[in-house]
């Protein structure tokens, strides 16, 4: 497990120099339509940093892309089938993959690009579909959200959504966890505390479970967080699941929608949840609309992608100043997803298809495209270079 505090001195000094060099680029905010022209000044090629990009694709692989050269430098071949749901462990060493049939889980070691394990729960006439998987920080067990479909000779029966604890070493279910309030859920955004002692059910109410017997020990109603603030709705994940790469361990940055009790105005905001302290540090930014927000690696900025049919905008959000500092239309298209580069200078647009488009974060200028050999089928991870590796 590595954190930013483990950086050797020499590397840190180098990073400072590199950062200083890149600060030569102007960072003026612009609120007009930017031209979609070619790359900036020829002397300096703006790249996303020195991290690694991961994305799964057809037919059975995960591309490993070197961020600086933007070239595919390796592939992980999945044995379990077409990868669909990709979960990166907190220590950034393993991928947990659920395949397109939702029945097979595969654990791959990223450094060696090898499959460590595959398993499935389906057997004979029972198809057990695994909707999400959350491994504990030590990779001893995982929490699975499953639903079993049983095939009888002349009919099928669909079971309830179930939360189960799966022992990764013994390869068996060791516990079924009761749903909080006895209420079955079709979806569960789960997150372990960094020390693995607590399991959080994320939602408008965050439920805290201890991880010995998985009983609920506390509840935090975020939706009624402050008097006079109004109803708060939090958005977690989505198809790709939670991406916590840029968050500090134990923290989670997410998007909020707030409806205040006086004007009944719906507003959008960004919130940083401190799971340990049960604190929500948030900024309200403006009127709610269809925008997806991602946290930049410096944790001082976030970027937004607003998509309406025929109108696509990039946003820059300054979290220190607690406001949207620029918005501009760009020539986008439907079905885009956004991530920031590991140095925060580029914006990556992926989904759907076989391209990753690169934009300069400061000016929203389109730079170039990474072309892959196949269509992407999973979430996209931008992993900064691990110091000390």
């Amino acid at each position, binding site marked *: 497990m590595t954190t930013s505090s483990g950086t050797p001195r020499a590397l840190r000094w180098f990073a400072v120099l590199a950062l200083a060099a890149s600060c030569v680029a102007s960072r003026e905010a612009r609120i007009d339509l930017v031209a979609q022209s070619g790359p900036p000044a020829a002397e300096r090629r703006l790249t996303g940093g020195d991290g690694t990009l991961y994305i799964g694709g057809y037919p059975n692989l995960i591309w490993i892309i070197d961020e600086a050269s933007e070239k595919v430098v390796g592939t992980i071949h999945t044995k379990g089938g077409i990868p669909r749901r990709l979960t990166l462990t907190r220590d950034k060493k393993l991928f947990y993959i659920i395949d397109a049939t*939702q029945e097979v889980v595969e654990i791959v070691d990223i450094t060696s690009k090898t499959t460590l394990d595959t398993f499935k729960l389906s057997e004979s006439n029972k198809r057990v579909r695994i909707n999400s998987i959350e491994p504990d920080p030590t990779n001893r067990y995982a929490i699975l959200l499953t639903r079993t479909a049983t095939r*009888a000779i*002349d*009919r099928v029966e669909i079971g309830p959504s179930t939360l189960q604890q799966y022992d990764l070493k013994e390869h068996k279910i060791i516990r079924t966890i009761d749903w909080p309030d006895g209420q079955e859920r079709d*979806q569960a955004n789960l997150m372990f505390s960094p020390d693995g002692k607590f399991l959080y059910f994320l939602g408008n109410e965050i439920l805290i479970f201890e991880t010995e017997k998985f009983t609920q020990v506390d509840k935090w109603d975020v939706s009624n967080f402050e008097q006079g603030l109004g109803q708060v709705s939090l958005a977690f994940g989505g198809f790709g699941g939670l991406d916590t790469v840029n968050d500090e361990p134990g923290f989670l940055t997410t998007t909020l*929608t707030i409806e205040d009790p006086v004007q009944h105005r719906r507003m959008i905001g960004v919130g940083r949840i401190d799971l340990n302290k049960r604190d929500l540090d948030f900024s309200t930014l403006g009127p709610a609309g269809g925008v997806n927000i991602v946290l930049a690696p410096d944790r001082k900025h976030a970027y937004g992608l607003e998509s309406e049919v025929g109108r696509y905008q990039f946003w820059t959000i300054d979290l220190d100043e607690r406001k949207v500092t620029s918005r501009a239309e760009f020539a986008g298209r439907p079905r885009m997803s956004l991530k920031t580069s590991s140095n925060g200078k580029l914006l990556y647009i992926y989904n759907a298809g076989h391209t990753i488009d690169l934009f300069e974060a400061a000016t929203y200028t389109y730079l170039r495209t990474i072309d892959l050999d196949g269509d992407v089928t999973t979430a996209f991870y931008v992993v900064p270079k691990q110091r000390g590796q």
Partner: protein
Amino acid sequence: MITRGRWLLAALAAIAPALLAANAQTPAPGQAPQTQKPSDEGIPVTDPVVVGACGSCHARDDKQRMTRISDRRATPENWELTIRRMISLNNARLTPETARAVIKSLSDTHGLAPDEARPIMFEAERRLVDFTYEGDKDTHTLCSRCHSIGRVLSERRTRDEWTRLIAMHRYYYPGIDGPSGGFRRGGPPPGGAAATARGRAGDPSGRGAEELQPMDKARDVLAKNFPLISAEWSAWSAAMHTPKLAGRWAIAGYQIGKGPVFGQLTIAGRAGVTDGFTTDARFTYSRTGETVSRKSRAIVYAGFQWRGRSADTPDDPGAWREVEFIERSGQQITGRWFTGDYDETGIDVTLRRVANDPIVTGTDVSALKTSTSNQRVRIYGANFPATVQTADIDFGQGVRVSRLVSRSPDMLIVDVDVSAAARVGPRDVSVGGSTISTPLVVYAKIDNVKVVPVAGMARLGGIRFPKRPEQFEARGVSYGSDGKAGTPDDLDLGPVNVRWSLEEYPATFRDDDVQFVGAIAQSGLFTPNVEGPNPKRSGNRNNVGDVWVVATYNTTTADGAVKPLKARAHLLVTVPLYLNWDSREIGR
């Protein structure tokens, strides 16, 4: 190149035995879970062919009721879909002949009554109509997400059977629980923040179980309104018989873009096929004189559902299909004959039995103008006597048949004078004692034109997938005696000649669809462009788009000036279908 489902199954067996094993239907001995019994209200299955084909998985009780099968009634199309799924996904093995026999048998004993089938005939007729199930909007929306609601309304099931239908959907398409299918609420839609901001998200913790899930609400609606046992079916299943259809029939039809169709066909029996018929048809497009001869083979299901194909042999899938509804009197049949890769080209037909008495089936013109003489009308029918006179032909007040130009047993050609005093409105036409109801109208002037269909659809194709063209037609409109548009006395004057063009429909600023979607001929036929990404289009987009289809009709004002009347329709030009679910076995 076209892939057949069975080929895929064989390829699958070769390539992925593990996958096939997971799907294997025949359970190992001792592993099969106990099947549940058929319900008490289930309809027995007594046909040994069905029992033999289906009984290895669908157990029968001592009252001859089979699990699942007895608890359901459906149209032949839906039974065929079920059997194809049994073969492709459940390892059932049936020869095509057996499959056809099972479809026939179950459509008869577990089918729909005429009154149950009539409202959803559009489904089997492959018509692109606007239809909403008014009984419950939520059910309509939920079930229409993926397929026409007509498929759902072609079913009658016990409550448990409706539940099992829903379970089947969730088994084969697990994503249906989520936002794309909408069967269950749980959790916000993808693009979580966006949907939450629009107030469209559910609780992100995935609850909300206090209210019924959408799938359960739909199940309740369907179970209540489309139960297995109904008065209509009880009555029909007792009375059902296939009328003796052999003999001569007069055809009156209409094909959009080509106009009226008249002719005759002969129906005869079909050796060796229960309730099977053959037809030999000959008909003419009255506008152009084009004559068509066509044979077909058909089967009547449930005593009133005619399904035919223009085929000379049983294995010929036939270029034209026939879906018709036989009236209980056995004297009239209505339906649609259709063809095209998307069944988009069709003739709406009415068939009337020709016995010995004269009958009138229609006219070639649809409108007669007041204060105009010598308008030529062809009157179609059968058994017109050789002694017919102008005095025997009646168009109603103000219309005088001035001359009988020619006469044959099937057609009279007359010239009519319409006086200034003739009242405008729909007219019946009689020849002797036989009358056809409102084949035409009397009008004073064309007040406007309209385009049909007002909402059209075409699909790109031509390289890898077939095109779906769209035929438009412009029709004259008269506002009737009140002179006001949009009132009940407005008259449809039939097709008029117009100049066709396309205009951009600006769904977004900078819309440029009209350059890419395709072209409209002066016949009103829109032919779409090819499919696939178009590198000449920004964003490498396809040639999709929506455009206005504009019809311009030139009229002349009283002082001789040319005044164009315009009407328009919306046309959606969209992507191909990559699946073809259409019926392949019915009628063969």
